[in-house]
């Protein structure tokens, strides 16, 4: 048996680890990976909450939560495609993937 609280806390923690990674690394590709982790965490939340709603009586909530998670996956895929394309473009332009060296625009 899983206590749903634990699942939700796991979601928050995974989000936090992803966030820390995204803030700490300078490698654009890694940041993108970390963002994917955060989206996964959100999906965990959705599923847990859906389950929680089902457990506490509002059974119809279970499906929307999971459907939302499906759409998040879809968008995540789209985001990764575009993100990698943008990163590749930068790499071709400057030969750099570390974002702290990408700062022509400032001020």
């Amino acid at each position: 048996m899983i206590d749903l609280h634990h699942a939700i806390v796991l979601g928050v923690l995974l989000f936090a680890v992803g966030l820390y990674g995204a803030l700490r690394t300078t490698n654009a590709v890694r940041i993108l990976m970390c963002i994917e982790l955060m989206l996964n965490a959100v999906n965990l939340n959705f599923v847990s909450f859906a389950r929680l709603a089902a457990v506490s009586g509002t059974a119809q909530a279970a499906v929307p939560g999971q459907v939302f998670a499906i759409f998040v996956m879809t968008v995540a895929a789209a985001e990764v495609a575009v993100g990698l394309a943008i990163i590749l473009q930068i790499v071709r332009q400057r030969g750099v993937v570390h974002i702290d060296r990408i700062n022509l625009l400032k001020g």
Partner: protein
Amino acid sequence: MTLLEKTMAAAALPPALLENIWLVPALPLASWVVITFFNRRLGERAAHVGTAAVLGSLVLAVAAFVGLLRIGHPVSSGGHWLTLGPVELRMGFTVDSLGAVMLLVVSIVSAAVHVYSVGYMHGDRRYQRYFGTLSLFTSAMLALVLADNFLLLLISWEVMGLCSYLLIGHWFEQAWPRMASMKAFMTTRVGDVAMMIGIWLLFTQTGTFNIADITRSAAEGHLGPAVITIAAVLLFAGAVGKSAQFPLHVWLPDAMAGPTPVSALIHAATMVAAGVYLVARSYGIFMHSAEAMLTVAVIGGFTALFAATIATVMTDFKKVLAYSTVSQLGYMMLGLGVGGFVAGVFHLVTHAFFKALLFLTSGSVSHAVGTFEIHEMGGLARKMKVTFWTFLAGAAALAGIPPLAGFWSKDEILLAVFGSGYHVLFWMAVATAFLTAYYMTRLTCLVFLGRPRDRHRYEHAHESPLSMTGPLVVLGALAVVAGLPGSAWMGHWLGHFLDFGHTLPGLSAAGHDAAAHAAHGAAGHGAAALVMPIAIGSAVLGILVGYAVYGLRLVRRESLIRAFRPIYTLFKNKYYVDELYQVVFVRPSVRLAEMCGIFDNRVIDGLVNGVGAVTVETSAAAGEFDNIVIDGAVNGLADGTVAAGRQLRRAHTGQVQSYMVALYAGAAVSLLALLWFLL
């Protein structure tokens, strides 16, 4: 058509015209549009378009004035404009006696200036733009005078501000006009913001922008005394900016950087008068607050004396006139502030004519000798007869020599101040009258009389063309006679006209009494008999002193200066107000803006560097701590110093990471706010 029918038609015209009074500002507005769109095609013919439009407005203004005389009651026109929730806004014009008088003054001065500019600005590279802006300005001023609500008044007010800005900076190739235009714009905006708040305040209290309605609810006691006082003072702040009253007077002398006709039109006769007009127009609000009235009177009186002292030491022809304008505007405010409504408006009218005249003569003189520096002039009376005599008329009118225009109106103001019982203000006003006569005599002597001090310039001097002297003559004549309608000789006709019951809808009976009383009422002939000699005496004394120093040279100017060195320096530097503003407002705000820029750019980096410095400090204090806790590989003080050096070099920005951190830090703070509320 029989003669009878013609007469009937003529009689029917005024009401129709008064109901379509929008035509008066519309003509110059149309001229502006035409000039703007057919800029290139028109060439110097733009001047004809502008002048024709203003002359048209003048004709209509005269007709409206006559019509109003015949009808005998104010006429409003206009209609529904928009609805704001429960509030319905009207947009309209109204012609009452105050408006009609102002209409006349504005269109006459404006027409004179237009005609004068045709010759004066000839050959200017932005000739069309000049006339276009002048037209727009005239249109805005006419609309302001006719507006029946604060919203239209505010719109016209702002448009005038913009035109003034463009005209002052007309010769923007030079640094001085550029700076001056910016200074004028910024300084007046300080007052404008306060004024807008005042208007909003009145609006929120009464639910209308209509001046008559607001005045009425003030009279009927629907507004609390505190509200009236605050609103009136805020409105007055706008007037202080526009009419160049202390402490926002600094822009006007600098505004002389614009072409001289502009100085005459905007910075002597009309735009600066808008502030005084605003106070007059909302007099029904002011008079219900003794505090506000006193504020107006004190600021006005102080400005009058303050600027007059500066005018005595200026050596630039136009700057003398500019400070004189500031001073005279203060005079008007003083008159209004002590309850002399008619006196203040009367002086506004006469001053418009002779001050426009004086400015235009200064233009004529500089046209001849190529400078405004009065110490390089002298003896010009012989060469420029028309200019000299018209100038003399204007100067005498300003100095208050009977029976010229300025005498009558100044006398009325002095009488009103005397009647109010504020003795200090009265003697300040008398001192101002003395100084005014003194500096005008000084100016006359230095420019027109005596021996030429600059041979070369004198040789080249010549009278100006007819297009310039013509307006001078017209205005000169007005400077002589414009005071008569308000004078005792004509039984204070102007006073009765302005009073004729409807100028200030909602003005309480007490208000009427106060105005009438101050002008020529219960204080009686005793006061008049006392005040008039004082007025004449101070003016004559001023002229005598001035003539003694500058005409007869009984006292050498240099020794005078030496004797009064500290005061002279203080006056000469205009009491250091500009310097004060520079130190107190301008520099700090520039610095603040820069700091904010730096802050925003580098907030995170700065934080990083700051934290970094702290880290280095800490590690210096406890090298072990650095080794164990923060870093496994690095190494004490030396490395820390190097790191600090790098950090300093690395003060660059644009780090996307810092953006992301800010994003989540912001989200965290928002959550913190939530928890705060949940607890």
